[in-house]
């Protein structure tokens, strides 16, 4: 039975103002003042203004979710739920429209887990930490109480989401829940650990909450005794979302690595360089964990077309390499089990660049795939980028039509460039006059290429494999923290694909559509010569081009200048 209780905006404004006076710091109070559109920002003025507003609005009938804030873009609503919330939550919600929207959603639908009386006569909520003392039979709901619980909740206006083996999950508007249970509900935050906190041992705060971190519960406890509403109910529990274990930034390490910003700098990308907006890029790989916090934080246009999970972690890491270079491109992920199909589908669905960080050793070729690659390059004008390999001689990188990418190591301290001894460079046995790579991206050194921070699905093969020993044997990251330090011509390939997206955007702004041949020519001319070091086959980097690194490390700014010369 939905409640008809309403709260006028006047009382909400008053409540907010009083809360500003009694509970919040002056800075937060001023922030609320600004949010409410009150120019004079002292607390006294705020209270006065709220009284004026209260008189102005008195008598008017409004819904509970009343207008309490406005901005230049239009009217936004400040959900009433926050008025009982902790000051830091109020501050976070008022300063982030995504959080305000989430709180409004929560206000309409609060999820509770209801425990009916059990067969064994014990309250499950009181058995936390001692569940092993219970038999499953004793923990199960008594059937009569279960039926009465469901009937009662439905009669009160709850939507039953699920009748489980041990509890009933139901949702209802916050106001209904609050009135029924006679508790004030507040917004809570399921805390997100931060690197900062790990380093400074509790002295620093947590990362800013994301919308999915918010939940609703009584401020005092996440559980309410059920007896106060119905004799068949033991407890009503407000379950917070599980604490996310993956951070949006990589863990710090004590050996030389190249972070995201340094990667962009080494590749000649700065604030003035393009960002890939309007360009469709496809990555064909092992799958994509699009829910990684680093992708959410970046607000990228990144989706997995093939949605099977990325058990390897490779594809997720490649996607990030592309987005670190071209953050506003439209990136779509395809799985590589059917490589011909993936490449054709990507082209059919509008990709201008296809990034492929894989291949077959000893230049093993497959005609059907070769035809598909040739088709999308020659008929669709798509630039297809392939990795040269890490100590292997990979095909399709040795196909003359594709852009083959090798690896250059940029010293994190000095920036000095050398051929990566982890990356392949070879003369093709298959195609005469074909040297691999054409150009290079950033790649670490042997034995493992531990170099770049890469997001992976927590607990994926890559995450697990990187864990366990100190650098340089392993990367010292957690076994399921969703981050690794690694690299190879795979990452180098994805970086170059990102740079091609910048070039395509730049060309489009001048009314030009780059052909794959033009892209390759520009990339070669835009590469920084690398004449130091040897590649994985021991081939020295001498002259430009050379077998070790091709024309060298691609520079984005130079590539855009080459586009200007077309």
């Amino acid at each position: 039975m939905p409640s008809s209780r309403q709260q006028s905006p006047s009382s909400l404004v008053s409540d907010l103002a009083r809360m500003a006076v009694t509970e919040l710091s002056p800075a937060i109070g001023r922030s609320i003042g600004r949010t409410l559109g009150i120019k004079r920002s002292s607390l006294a003025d705020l209270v006065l203004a709220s009284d004026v507003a209260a008189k102005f609005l008195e008598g008017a009938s409004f819904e509970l979710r009343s207008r309490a804030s406005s901005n230049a873009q239009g009217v936004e609503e400040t959900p009433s739920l926050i008025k009982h919330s902790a000051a830091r939550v109020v501050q976070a919600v008022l300063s982030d429209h995504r959080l305000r929207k989430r709180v409004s959603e929560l206000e309409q639908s609060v999820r509770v887990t209801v425990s009916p009386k059990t067969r064994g006569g014990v309250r499950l909520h009181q058995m936390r930490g001692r569940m092993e003392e219970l038999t499953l039979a004793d923990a199960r709901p008594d059937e009569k109480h279960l039926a009465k619980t469901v009937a009662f909740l439905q009669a009160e206006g709850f939507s039953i989401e699920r009748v489980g083996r041990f509890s009933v999950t139901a949702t209802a508007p916050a106001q209904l829940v609050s009135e029924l249970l006679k508790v004030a509900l507040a917004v809570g935050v399921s805390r997100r650990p931060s690197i900062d906190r790990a380093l400074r041992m509790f002295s620093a705060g947590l990362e800013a909450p994301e919308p999915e971190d918010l939940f609703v519960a009584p401020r005092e406890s996440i559980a309410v005794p059920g007896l106060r509403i119905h004799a068949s109910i033991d407890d009503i529990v407000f379950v917070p979302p599980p604490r996310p274990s993956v951070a949006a930034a990589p863990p710090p390490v004590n050996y030389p690595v190249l972070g995201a910003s340094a990667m962009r700098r080494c590749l000649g990308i700065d604030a003035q360089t393009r960002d890939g907006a309007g360009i469709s890029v496809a990555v064909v790989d092992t799958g994509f964990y699009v829910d990684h916090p680093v992708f959410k934080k970046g607000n990228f246009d990144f989706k997995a077309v093939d949605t099977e999970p990325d058990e390897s972690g490779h594809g997720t890491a490649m996607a990030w390499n592309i987005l670190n270079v071209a953050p506003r491109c439209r990136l779509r992920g395809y799985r590589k089990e059917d490589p011909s199909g993936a490449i054709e589908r990507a082209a059919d669905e509008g990709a201008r660049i296809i990034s492929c960080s894989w291949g077959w050793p000893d230049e093993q070729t497959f005609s059907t795939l070769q035809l598909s690659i040739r088709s999308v390059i020659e008929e669709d004008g798509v630039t297809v980028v392939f990795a040269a390999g890490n100590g292997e001689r990979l095909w399709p990188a040795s196909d003359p039509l594709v852009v083959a990418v090798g690896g250059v190591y940029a010293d994190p301290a000095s920036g000095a460039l050398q051929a990566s001894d982890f990356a392949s460079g070879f003369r093709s046995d298959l195609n005469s006059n074909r040297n691999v790579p054409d150009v290079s991206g950033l790649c670490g050194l042997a034995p493992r290429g531990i170099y770049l921070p890469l997001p992976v699905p927590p607990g994926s093969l890559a995450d697990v494999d990187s864990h366990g020993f100190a650098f340089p044997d392993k990367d010292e990251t957690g076994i399921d923290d969703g981050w690794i330090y690694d690299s190879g011509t795979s990452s180098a390939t994805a970086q170059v694909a990102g740079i091609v997206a910048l070039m395509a955007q730049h060309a489009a702004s001048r009314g030009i559509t780059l052909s794959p041949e033009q892209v390759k020519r520009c990339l070669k001319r835009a590469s920084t010569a690398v004449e130091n070091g040897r590649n994985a086959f021991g081939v020295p980097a001498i002259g430009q081009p050379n077998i070790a690194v091709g024309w060298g490390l691609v520079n984005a700014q130079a590539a855009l200048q080459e586009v200007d010369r077309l």
Partner: protein
Amino acid sequence: MSKSQIRATVHVTASSGDSNHRPEPARVQRAADSLRGLGFEVVRAGRYGVSVKADRQRFEVELGIAPGHAEGAGVAISPRDNALTGLIDYVDILPPASLAGK
């Protein structure tokens, strides 16, 4: 896909007979329909061939692939169904690609 299943691309010939020419979409679709009728799972009818999945025995019985032929490029076939003769000419059975590090 169960581990006993094989994923392969069946090459479809162009009506011109040139193996490098792109077959007409109708030919690819015809091949896909025939293969589906023979019990293959058709993953995609592509530009040059049909991506299929099936157990090894089906490849051996229906396409005449030599028993024990694990994987490879351009595997010769001799289809049991006459409707496929001349329409398809070889199969690429791709082993998993090597990932180029990270």
